[in-house]
């Protein structure tokens, strides 16, 4: 049984019998069965909160040039700053407090990754649905494009686009969306093909509901489970890809350093033994990506109807 598919029945029963397990409760207890996944989820929520409230937590606004002193550059972790707070993780080549820079960088990395993921999900699922529903030549044509695109590595496509368009937040978003939409299209199409032949779609057809309503009101909600799984994994990929591109110097501009750019800035100081400028942003990136991946893994196990007892 799919978790999302049978939402309708228990919702009606729940008020009369409070001890009945709602799908959400079952989903929650299934998810929490793995302690690793529970820890990963807690970490991920913590990271997201930190990113949202970065201006309140960070001792310094790293974009505000008035607060950054070049004389304080390359301080080791634990050194005391002129303003009185402590450089918890040291300072970077421009004198920014690394801890603050990481919090702000996390914000940029997460928002770029999540936003491109959402846009790619929207575009990909509409195209995938259209392919599955129309069938015939349209479907063959769309899926051929998807196949061709997926035969090229993501980083190569992103590099090509950025080489032609140049740097910038909008450009890197375009690149990330272009890279990702094909995965969503393929996922939606394969599950929509299964759903399309089920009885409830036939029933909806008999009721003369519009194509739009059948597609978005009936088929799409039932394809959500695999989409959520692909979405989490793809968001982790997008964050890693953005970091890689920024590291290569073709991603985000220097004025708004994401984690990848912070690591890249630290590269030149590393050979002289100042490890912290690259090391700590990398750890932040690593924790983010690993926790998203672990949550995604557990979601896949929980949401997969074939693995359900």
């Amino acid at each position: 049984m799919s978790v999302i598919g049978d939402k309708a029945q228990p919702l009606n029963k729940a008020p009369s019998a409070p001890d009945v397990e709602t799908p959400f409760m079952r989903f929650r207890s299934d998810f929490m069965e793995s302690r690793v996944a529970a820890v990963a989820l807690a970490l991920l929520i913590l990271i997201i909160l930190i990113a949202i409230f970065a201006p309140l937590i960070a001792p310094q606004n790293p974009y505000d040039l008035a607060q950054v002193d070049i004389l304080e550059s390359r301080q080791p972790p634990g050194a005391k700053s002129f303003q009185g707070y402590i450089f918890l993780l040291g300072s970077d080549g421009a004198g920014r407090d690394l801890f603050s820079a990481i919090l702000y960088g996390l914000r940029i990395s997460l928002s770029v990754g999540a936003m491109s993921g959402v846009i790619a999900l929207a575009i990909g699922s509409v195209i995938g649905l259209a392919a599955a529903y129309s069938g015939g030549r349209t479907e063959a044509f769309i899926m051929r494009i998807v196949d061709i695109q997926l035969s090229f590595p993501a980083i190569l496509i992103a590099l090509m686009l950025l080489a032609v368009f140049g740097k910038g937040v909008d450009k890197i978003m375009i690149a990330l969306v272009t890279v990702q939409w094909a995965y969503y299209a393929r996922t939606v199409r394969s599950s929509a093909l299964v759903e399309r032949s089920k009885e409830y779609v036939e029933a909806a057809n008999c009721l003369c509901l519009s194509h739009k309503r059948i597609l978005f009101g009936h088929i799409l909600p039932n394809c959500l489970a695999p989409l959520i799984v692909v979405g989490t994994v793809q968001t982790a990929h997008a964050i890693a890809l953005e970091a890689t591109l920024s590291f290569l110097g073709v991603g985000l501009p220097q004025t708004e350093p994401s984690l990848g750019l912070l690591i890249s800035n630290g590269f030149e100081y590393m050979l002289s033994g100042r490890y912290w400028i690259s090391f700590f942003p990398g750890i932040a990136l690593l924790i983010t990506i690993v926790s998203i991946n672990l949550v995604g893994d557990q979601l896949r196990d929980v949401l997969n109807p074939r693995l359900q007892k």
Partner: protein
Amino acid sequence: MQSAVVVFVMSVIVFFGVNVVGDPIDMLINPEADQEDIEIAIRALGLDKPIGEQYLFFLKNALAGNLGRSFIFGEPALQLILQRMPATMELAFAALIMAVVLGIPLGLYAGLKPESLFARTTMSVSILGFSLPTFWVGLMMIMVFAVILGWLPSTGRGELGTFMGMTSSLFTLDGLLHMLMPALNLALLKISLVIRLTRAGTREAVLQDYIKFAYAKGLKQSRVIFVHLLKNILIPVITVLGLEFGNLIAFSVVTETIFAWPGMGKLLIDSIQQLDRPVIVAYLILIVLIFVALNLIVDIAYSILDPRVRLGDRKA
């Protein structure tokens, strides 16, 4: 047939990317040239003609291998890239060999003894291998092995040796030392992949009748594992590795930048940063050709390796 279409579509995209999105005069002609030179160049590149004719002109030039001259080096762009190609190829090959030499035995062991501590550690490390951003691992390798321990050189290609007409870092000790870190860095993801593939294949195969029969015949364990089992799990591993070779070439852009390896990936990044556009265009066209060729080779190799897939069926 499909490959031809892909090449054609890509050439159109690259052409439009350069000529319509950007200003072709800016893109293909050195900005430091004077007015007279610019006009000569415009005529030479056919930029005074209508757009359809321009595209044909571009195609003709590209087919003749004439993709413009580099602003920085003053050499033909294509030649510049082809000079750097052996360095990238040898790095990718070294990474591929590492993935096979390390990945298959580890995966085999993890598949045969899934409960042992060593197998569990291997699997957890391989999960990490998937999640770790390649470029950061590269930096940390430099920090540990080059800066702190001082065992390995961190940049460049080292001394080159010549063997049977091929010049490569593989044939000198210094070259090998230089290659160790970049190749391992590039191979990390593929090692994890091979471990997982081999382990999954092994776990499936040990339960099958032909393995039980081989044991029942009284064959030695080593013979069962290395002859009967390995033969059967190798086919998917080899196919995936073939497909991943292209991926290695693409990812070498990152590794080459970190380790200052003078390959074509580093050339691309340098060119993007110095706005050396003819080199960028030439690189993009060349890499698409390489990819299409690789996919074709893997398809054909697959049909040779696995008799169930034949070219005849694919056309139908």
